[in-house]
């Protein structure tokens, strides 16, 4: 390699390294401002600025959804299994909105501590499967829970032999991470 080419190679490498480093530092410095949504834990522990529009994201707590009769308003709790935030929303619900499903609400906190959402988005995970597989998986999980309650060791499920089976069962447990 000629000296000029070597010099150019070093310059290009240095350029990429420099810009990469600068970007990394900038992203780290602004980590807090780059928070797309607060998880319920962050919402409670970090303290949320009032009078500012933010997003709160988590799972819709099972059994928490209450529809106000005669209006389009619903109330529910957003949870990450550590803390729960009460949310109220008026408007059209996204198709995937249901209990146990991920959700991101944008709005602000009201005086009585309820998070009033002006905008509600459903979040889904990265698992895709046909309904039959999902059913088999669910049945398998229920059996495993039953076994565990009866004191049997948690054996690997034998009935659902797809790769997705093990993977999404694991994903279920770590759902709180993604949301």
């Amino acid at each position: 390699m000629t000296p000029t080419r070597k010099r150019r190679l070093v310059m290009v490498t240095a350029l990429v390294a420099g810009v990469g480093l600068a970007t990394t530092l900038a992203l780290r410095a602004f980590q807090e401002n780059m928070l797309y949504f607060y998880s319920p834990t962050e919402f409670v522990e970090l303290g949320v600025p009032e009078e500012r529009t933010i997003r709160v994201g988590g799972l819709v707590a099972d059994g928490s959804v209450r529809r106000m009769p005669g209006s389009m308003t619903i109330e529910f709790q957003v949870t990450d299994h550590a803390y729960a935030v009460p949310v109220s929303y008026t408007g059209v619900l996204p198709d995937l909105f249901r209990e146990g499903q991920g959700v991101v609400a944008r709005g602000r906190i009201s005086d009585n501590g309820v998070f009033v959402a002006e905008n509600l988005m459903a979040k889904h995970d990265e698992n895709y499967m046909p309904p039959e597989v999902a059913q088999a998986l669910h049945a398998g999980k229920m059996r495993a829970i039953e076994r565990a309650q009866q004191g049997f060791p948690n054996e690997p499920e034998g009935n659902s032999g797809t790769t997705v089976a093990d993977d999404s069962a694991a994903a279920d447990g770590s759902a709180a991470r993604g949301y």
Partner: protein
Amino acid sequence: MWLWFHKLGSPPYFYRTAGRLIPWFAIPAVLLLVAGTVGGLAIAPSDYEQGDGFRIIYVHVPSAYLAMFGYVAMAIAAAIGLIWRMKLAFAFAAACAPIGAAFTFLCLATGSLWGKPMWGVWWDWDGRMTSMLVLLFLYLGVIALRGAFDDAAKGDRAAALLAIVGVVNIPIIKFSVDWWNTLHQPATISKLSAPSMTMDMLGWLLIMIVGYMLFFAAVVTLRLRGEVLLRERGARWIRGLDSRA
């Protein structure tokens, strides 16, 4: 091998070889895209959560993949061009840019069409979507910068510099869903673990991805021939070519 490599570096030889290669990319591309479309729309089962809405994945993910692949290819070519002053590398980088930009646009648009029914919004400023929008602007910036110079060689070098700098955005796109809270879900297909999708759905997606890659190869080769001609104008070998071809 080296002899072949050197021969390929000669513009007339390259121009001819590239012309012969195009159908070898284009025909399998069309076959795979048709197969993937039939499979993805009609044969693959619908999803347990999203029903038939999930089928948008078959055009969304391959677009996203090409958008990023095209950018990396362009940046590597730009670096080779800058370091070794290779005309063909600059020509390749120039050929990649508009195609990559088109697929970035497709990725954003199909993502939007998927987001509206499932998430409830066309768009939101989460890490994945914002960094993908930045990618589109980088592509447009590279194209505009090249066009802004009267001297083509200077334009090539300036655009190459921007393309190389912009490559830092690629890992940001890739890992945005892991580093930050995002509305977008994490990756379904990754090298480290089994894909979170059953085979009867995944197979058609892989066929689609290969089809998109071959489509990219065919179109980039066609554009590359044009770029070679533009950079070689005035050369003697061009005299033999028919402009009506």
